[in-house]
């Protein structure tokens, strides 16, 4: 049924919208919203300019968005960057996600589409500002020819080219046809605006996707609806590595609406039905048996014991070895040792995993909320044994990503299921329980520290050994070996244990693991030295003594910044956070403050948390202060929202986040046993920007990491216990007997 595929392709630019109630039909309709799906070919009357821009007859300007939207504001931020140099009228801006097939056909002109690591702005700003300037110059060149005047006499403003001396103007819509025939100018011939001349970048413009997110019209992957579409529910082996042993399809094939029972790979089985409830009900009623697999006896206890073996064994990798820790350690006056644990975490985006696929003999299409649309396409092609050039991926809005949607496991499954009924689109939707139990997880790690303080209370030696499940720094060592501290003898080692549960980077990645452990240990050293935590931290971040060490593999990297500059920037946000928190003001008994810093690439963050112990085994967070230097801000209000959200995300991890394993299976299943921070627990958050205006960074992640040790340090400072293993809910928060 190639006709179906054809019809989808033609209407690709249309967003899929639910028909108004009446008859219950679902139909296509042009929505004109910011969220329309991308099309390779501009509709009649529209003119595409240099890949990125489509000018419509009504002079509206559609910008193509190549970073995926998971709530961080990618659509709006990318549009601001592109529209700035384009001199487009913001009121007439529309956006659409790029076509992944077009991106491939055009040799990846849209740059990096993977959306992760707080890098969307940093890695796009030059590309987008340059493209905007090139397209503006194409329009200027076209106008110069039409007016018969030199290009230098023309001014681009509000989606029109003006000739000020004669008062003439031509709209972009009037010029687009001519401009499309002008070769894009060499970027080297263009000068981009200086930051002080920006009209859109740096301004707190309203998000383009917000209106559709207040009336139910925003379309997420779970909302995709195609003609004749079927729905699939899936059951996966509860035990890691287990296989499907047997099932009884006949038991459910007669149930209403059920079309097919489809084994998915070796370890899962799906039911296809007219709607998801039917599919899920039938799946739950179907007898299924699983074969245990090699990990049937795996538990959180065996995993922890294995990590502890890692701490005792010879390290696999010495990441850093400054000075001579072995010689310096015994000479010092005072020593401190501590062991820290961070558990597995599930990303828990609120939209459960899903993907919709349509497969015919020679083509495939996938509609999916994903952070990695190109990977989604290649995974689908590989699964189907088809040419990647015969496929298309339509990215949709994501109901949260947080790193979970960097994996394409559900895309692989959707392709396998859709292949069973060629020519019919199938939407695979995981239940929340599937989503909690079968995600790749933020990995566990165990850290052991040993440090020496000299008689003046300064750190003479620092030894940190990590036992983790990956040699990939993003899952194990980010933030551990890049410390800028003025410590002459520093050794950081990694012991790699065999991974059993697949890892996936989660918002904050290993920074969120190592920021907790290193910033907690620094706080413990300050207490041991009898020093104020802020003053102690500040002395360690001495630009004149910053350690001259760069990790061999770090991404995002430091953009060539020298350690003294990095230390000065990190210390500047530390100072700002302490100042805004009123650090020197005393707190009443039972209250406490904690402080922590986090350097991620070219982003510098510090957090202060204030808590009150409630005297009944728990605590209240009074407020959170974050100071941050990501270089520049594209949209200050969106950036502030990202930090507010990072705080909630970090606090959830700190207080409640824990996935445990028993008998080879994940124990937690849903939001009743995998808890999230709720509205009544959300503290006030103050965000203070300190912008260096030199090197671009990111804002989506770094506060997530910094707020965790700031909280646990505050609890200790208030007289509560020193939290060395997360989550905090496993500890009773009583005042220590002094």
């Amino acid at each position, binding site marked *: 049924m190639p006709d179906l595929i054809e019809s989808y392709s033609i209407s690709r630019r249309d967003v899929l919208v639910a028909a108004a109630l009446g008859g*219950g039909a679902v139909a296509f309709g042009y929505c004109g919203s910011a969220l329309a799906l991308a099309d390779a070919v501009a509709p009649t009357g529209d003119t595409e300019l240099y890949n990125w821009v489509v000018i419509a007859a009504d002079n509206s300007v559609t910008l193509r968005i190549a970073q995926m939207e998971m709530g961080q504001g990618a659509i709006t931020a990318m549009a601001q960057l592109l529209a700035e140099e384009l001199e487009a009228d913001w009121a007439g801006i529309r956006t659409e996600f790029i076509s992944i097939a077009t991106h491939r056909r055009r040799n990846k002109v849209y740059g990096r589409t993977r959306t992760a690591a707080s890098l969307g702005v940093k890695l796009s700003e030059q590309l987008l500002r340059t493209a905007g300037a090139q397209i503006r110059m194409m329009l200027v060149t076209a106008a110069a020819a039409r007016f018969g005047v030199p290009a230098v006499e023309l001014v681009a403003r509000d989606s029109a080219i003006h000739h000020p001396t004669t008062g003439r103007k031509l709209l972009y819509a009037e010029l687009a046809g001519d401009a499309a025939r002008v070769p894009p100018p060499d970027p080297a011939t263009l000068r981009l605006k200086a930051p002080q001349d920006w009209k859109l970048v740096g301004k707190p413009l309203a998000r383009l996707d917000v209106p559709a997110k*207040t*009336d139910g019209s925003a379309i997420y992957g779970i909302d995709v609806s195609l003609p004749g579409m079927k729905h699939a529910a899936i059951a996966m082996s509860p035990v890691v590595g287990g296989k499907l042993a047997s099932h009884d399809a006949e038991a459910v094939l007669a149930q209403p609406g059920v079309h097919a029972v489809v084994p998915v790979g070796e370890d899962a089985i799906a039911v296809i039905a007219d709607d998801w409830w039917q599919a899920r009900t039938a799946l739950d009623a179907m007898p299924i048996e699983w074969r245990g697999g090699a990990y049937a006896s795996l538990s959180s206890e065996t995993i922890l014991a294995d990590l502890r073996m890692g701490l005792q064994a010879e390290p696999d990798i010495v990441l850093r070895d400054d000075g001579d820790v072995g010689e310096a350690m015994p000479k010092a006056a005072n020593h401190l040792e501590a062991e820290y644990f961070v558990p597995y975490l599930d990303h828990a985006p609120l939209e459960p995993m899903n993907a919709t696929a349509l497969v015919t003999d020679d083509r495939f299409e996938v509609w999916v909320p994903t952070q990695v649309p190109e990977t989604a396409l290649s995974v689908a092609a590989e699964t189907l044994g088809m040419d990647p050039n015969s496929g298309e991926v339509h990215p949709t*809005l994501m109901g*949260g990503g947080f790193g979970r949607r960097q994996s394409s496991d559900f895309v692989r499954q959707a392709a396998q299921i859709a292949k069973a009924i060629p020519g019919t689109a199938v939407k695979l939707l995981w239940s929340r329980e599937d989503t909690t139990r079968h995600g790749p997880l933020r990995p566990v790690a165990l850290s052991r520290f040993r440090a020496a303080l000299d008689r003046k209370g300064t750190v003479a030696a620092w030894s940190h050994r990590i036992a983790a499940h990956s040699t990939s720094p993003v899952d194990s060592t980010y933030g551990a070996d890049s410390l800028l501290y003025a410590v002459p003898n520093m050794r950081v080692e990694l012991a790699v244990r065999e991974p059993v549960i697949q890892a996936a980077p989660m918002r904050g990645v290993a920074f969120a693991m190592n920021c907790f452990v290193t910033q907690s240990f620094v706080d413990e050293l300050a207490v041991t030295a009898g020093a104020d935590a802020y003053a102690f931290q500040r002395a360690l971040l001495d630009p004149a003594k910053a350690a001259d060490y760069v990790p061999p593999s770090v991404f995002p990297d430091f953009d060539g910044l020298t350690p003294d500059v990095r230390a000065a920037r990190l210390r500047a946000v530390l100072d700002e956070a302490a100042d805004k928190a009123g650090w020197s003001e005393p707190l009443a008994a039972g209250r406490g403050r904690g402080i922590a810093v986090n350097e991620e690439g070219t982003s510098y963050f510090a957090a202060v948390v204030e808590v009150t112990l409630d005297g009944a085994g728990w605590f209240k967070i009074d407020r959170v202060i974050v100071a941050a230097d990501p270089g520049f801000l594209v949209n200050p209000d969106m950036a502030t929202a990202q930090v*507010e*959200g990072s705080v909630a*995300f970090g606090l959830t991890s700190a207080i409640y986040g824990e996935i445990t394993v028993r008998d080879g299976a994940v124990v937690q299943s849903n939001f009743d046993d995998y808890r999230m921070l709720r509205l009544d627990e959300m503290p006030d958050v103050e965000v203070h920007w300190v912008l260096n205006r030199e090197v671009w960074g990111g804002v989506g992640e770094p506060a997530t990491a910094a707020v965790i040790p700031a909280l646990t340090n505050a609890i200790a400072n208030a007289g509560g216990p020193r939290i060395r293993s997360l989550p905090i809910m496993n500890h009773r928060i009583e005042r220590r007997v002094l």
Partner: protein
Amino acid sequence: MTATTQDRTVVLTVNGEKVSLTAPGDMPLLWVLRDRLGLTGTKYGCGIGACGACTVHVDGAPTLACQTSVKAIAGAHVTTIEGLSPDRGHPLQRAWVAEQVPQCGYCQSGQIMRAAALLARNPEPSRGEIAKEMRANICRCGTYLRIVRAIERAARDA
């Protein structure tokens, strides 16, 4: 097939329009709205009444659509986010835009519907009353501070 899964015809009024539908009696309202009526603004988040993403109004009361079978509400008036206002003009929808509340936006239909029921019952809720009511709804992106501000703004402007 058990008795509860047998199809039955249920009449509901959804966003002001009378709908007659045939569905398994135990089919949750959530899936009727989404898969049978095409009203996808109401979201599936947990299926156990723990996240609030599916919050709609049944006869004016905030109700978890994933925990409500269609047969249990035969004859009722159901309002979803699509029916809250004809033009995105409800004071809460305007406040949600003014405060730039949504990030991923997935939970926001449920948040707005719960807040709308709160304001209908209590036009000037205190911050404590807002917190008590709204703790039922999870926002994984952490837009809680803005949700509170938007409810307070809507209460002021209504």
